[in-house]
């Protein structure tokens, strides 16, 4: 579905994406990393919005640098940008209908059914005729998500889809995405990755530093996490947990109570390695 080889994008002196190689099949693929890691730039290239400076990219088996193939990709693509500005004077229904037209759906009856379907899917049927300016942030995010889902695309590129959603809506998002063909999504939220993604890529400074399943990411910290009642100055990181004990990451001292690692532990260990 997405094949990237040595993909590079530079802005001025900054290499936002630096020789990224990845290959994904169907399913939900998570892109994890701190702010400025290059996630959004990579997603914008996967959404055909940005052209790479070098490297090869194939989306749905097609080459986005060739105009006819790019148009074909866009017909089969749904994209939720990081800041999905919406027309405040439109209703959610109008907005979805507008995006459907941009996607070349000219049949009004089809657009009507599709607008209802996607707005129902994001639970906005009740407010579909209200002006977008009157909706909450979470509702606006769901309108944008509905727009991305128009036409049941083969490839969904979602930049921080859970932004502004409450826990209930996040659960709903999970079930929505689980039925989609291929989803490439970025997130800051590690719990989203563990709940949603079959595969995860971790990015630091424009480069992919980890590829594997969420379990593999957690596995990086096997034998490197221990808990204690006191802070450990020799640990790479220590933090107080909700149970009142300290959790440590690093090389456990003799006799330490080693515990099973979580996805957060694996990610934090990876982040530490990247910055030392």
């Amino acid at each position: 579905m997405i094949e990237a080889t040595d993909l590079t994008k530079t802005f001025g002196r900054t290499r936002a994406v630096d020789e990224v190689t990845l290959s994904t099949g169907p399913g939900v693929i998570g892109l994890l990393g701190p702010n400025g890691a290059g996630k959004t730039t990579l997603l914008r290239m996967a959404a055909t919005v940005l052209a790479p400076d070098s490297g090869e990219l194939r989306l749905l088996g097609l080459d986005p640098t060739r105009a006819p193939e790019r148009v074909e990709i866009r017909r089969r693509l749904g994209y939720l940008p990081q800041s999905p500005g919406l027309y405040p004077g439109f209703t959610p229904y109008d907005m979805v209908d507008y995006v459907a037209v941009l996607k070349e759906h000219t049949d009004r009856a089809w657009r009507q059914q599709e607008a209802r379907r996607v707005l129902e899917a994001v639970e906005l049927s009740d407010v579909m005729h209200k002006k977008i300016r009157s909706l909450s942030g979470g509702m606006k995010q769901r309108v944008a998500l509905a727009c991305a889902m128009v036409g049941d695309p083969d490839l969904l590129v979602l930049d921080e889809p859970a932004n502004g959603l409450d826990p209930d809506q996040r659960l709903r998002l999970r079930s929505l995405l689980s039925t989609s063909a291929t989803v490439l999504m970025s997130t800051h939220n590690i719990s989203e990755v563990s709940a949603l993604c079959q595969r995860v890529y971790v990015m630091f400074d424009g480069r992919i530093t980890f590829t594997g399943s969420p379990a593999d990411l957690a596995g990086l910290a096997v034998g490197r996490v221990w808990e204690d009642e006191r802070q450990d100055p020799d640990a790479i990181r220590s933090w107080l947990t909700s149970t009142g004990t300290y959790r440590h990451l690093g090389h456990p001292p003799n006799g330490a109570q080693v515990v099973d690692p979580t996805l957060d532990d694996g990610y934090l260990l990876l982040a530490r390695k990247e910055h030392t």
Partner: protein
Amino acid sequence: MSTHHTTWHADDGDLGDYLAGRTTTVLAASIESHLVSCAACRARLGTLTDVVERDQAWDRLADAIDRPSRAPWIVRSAIATPVMVQAAVVAVLLVGLVPLLAATAWGDRGLVTLLVLAPLAPVAAVALAYRDTSDPSGEMGLAAPVAGLRLVALRALLVAAVALPIAVGVLLGVDRWIGDVPVRLAFAWCLPGLALAALVLLAGTTRLDPTYVAVAASTGWAFLIGAIVVAERSVRLDLFTDAVAGPAVQGVALAVAAAAVTITVVRRDAVAYRRTT
């Protein structure tokens, strides 16, 4: 609804006819006023309603309400996008209101103002319409199949379609009002305006900021006007009209416009409807 006690009840036959719309107007009015005050008949009416038919009626109503607008999507997006509206308003003001006021206040000199400002109207409109921040949903649009030349051309035509008739209309109106305005003045600015706007469009949809290109194009136009003033040592309207409507300016403008549009079309595969950075 009231639940007042009533002494009579509508029979099933009348209620059935009422539901089917087979009663006379008088009987229908009588049944309706009775239903308002009789909970028992309202309940019985509910049992007589064909649920399937009722649901279908609701669906038909919802279909009628939800039907997508027939208005062309490009018009809808332009109306919804404040900067597109802003662009059209600026264009209209530059080619309409400002020259009109200037002509009223200063006569011929005001009409010279028109010649100076009118070609800049489409430049301003295009520059405003293609700023990175112009379209709140622009990022989503960039990933749509229609992104590219089709959207660029449609939006440019839309702004032109708003500004051009108003401009020509204002000029012809001024002609009637003030008199002695050469009709060709009304059209002399069109080609220079098209050329400047096409340049901004071509540059603005690539890597250059359309605002800078617009400023450069406007400066070039100002130099041309200045050159005419210096050459003629006057700001007389007829001299300006002769110069701007003359074959030299019109020919160059036509060539520049044709070249810019041709290059845009040739490199249409690389054209995004706005810059991506």
